[in-house]
């Protein structure tokens, strides 16, 4: 990966494609309620967009924008979101991961469970995204 040769075509295509790939990843995560998709798949697509940038732009420039440490932080935040969604219902007398008892007063049972699924899928997406970027960075061997 050292001494990457900058190529205008590769640069341009990567810059053009990445926003669409990331929008599609967000669509896959949020569309898990209605069709195929969800956190695991969307997180993988997000990670693929980051990997495409790293391959096209070179790692030094890319690590300044989204460092491996930031990827680890994203993954940790994702699992914390999942645990928080599981622990919050305990505050209102529910059981662990009982989304219908989340302390949000203006929503009722089924809507709360739908929202809980979305929150949990977002957490899963962040974990998969961060972990795959970590795997890529460390397997490529650029991290000291």
């Amino acid at each position, binding site marked *: 990966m050292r001494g990457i040769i900058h190529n205008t075509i590769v640069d341009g295509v990567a810059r053009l494609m990445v926003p669409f790939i990331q929008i599609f990843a967000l669509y896959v995560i949020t569309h898990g*309620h209605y069709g195929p998709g969800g956190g695991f798949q969307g997180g993988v697509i997000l990670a693929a967009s980051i990997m495409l940038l790293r391959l096209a732009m070179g790692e030094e420039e890319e690590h300044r924008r989204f460092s491996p440490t930031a990827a680890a932080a994203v993954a940790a935040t994702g699992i914390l979101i999942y645990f928080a969604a599981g622990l919050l219902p305990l505050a209102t007398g529910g059981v662990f991961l009982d989304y219908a008892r989340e302390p949000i007063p203006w929503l009722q049972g089924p809507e709360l469970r739908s929202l809980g699924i979305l929150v949990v899928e977002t957490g899963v997406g962040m974990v998969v995204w961060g972990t795959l970027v970590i795997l890529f960075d460390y*397997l490529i061997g650029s991290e000291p």
Partner: protein
Amino acid sequence: MKALTALILGAFFLLFVYAESDLPRPGDPAAPTRVHITPRYIEGSFPETKTPNIVTAVLADYRGYDTLGETAVIFTAGLAVMLILPRALRRGKRQ
């Protein structure tokens, strides 16, 4: 020793073949899982979770604990790579 291993493996093979004959056929509508679990999800998942995709409802709601464990496993795998690989790289450089 090898003959003993082969004998034990063969005995287990015959046991599994015998046990398999009691399993419900694939796609059998009268199988126990299809009699009470499947109709419960098909009929109950939308009114209970307002999520049209039954797979997502089962994955993230009914079996949320399982998915939490899966996510933790993925996260742990990432952490393990972060801990182990830099050490392995350094050792490789020294040699």
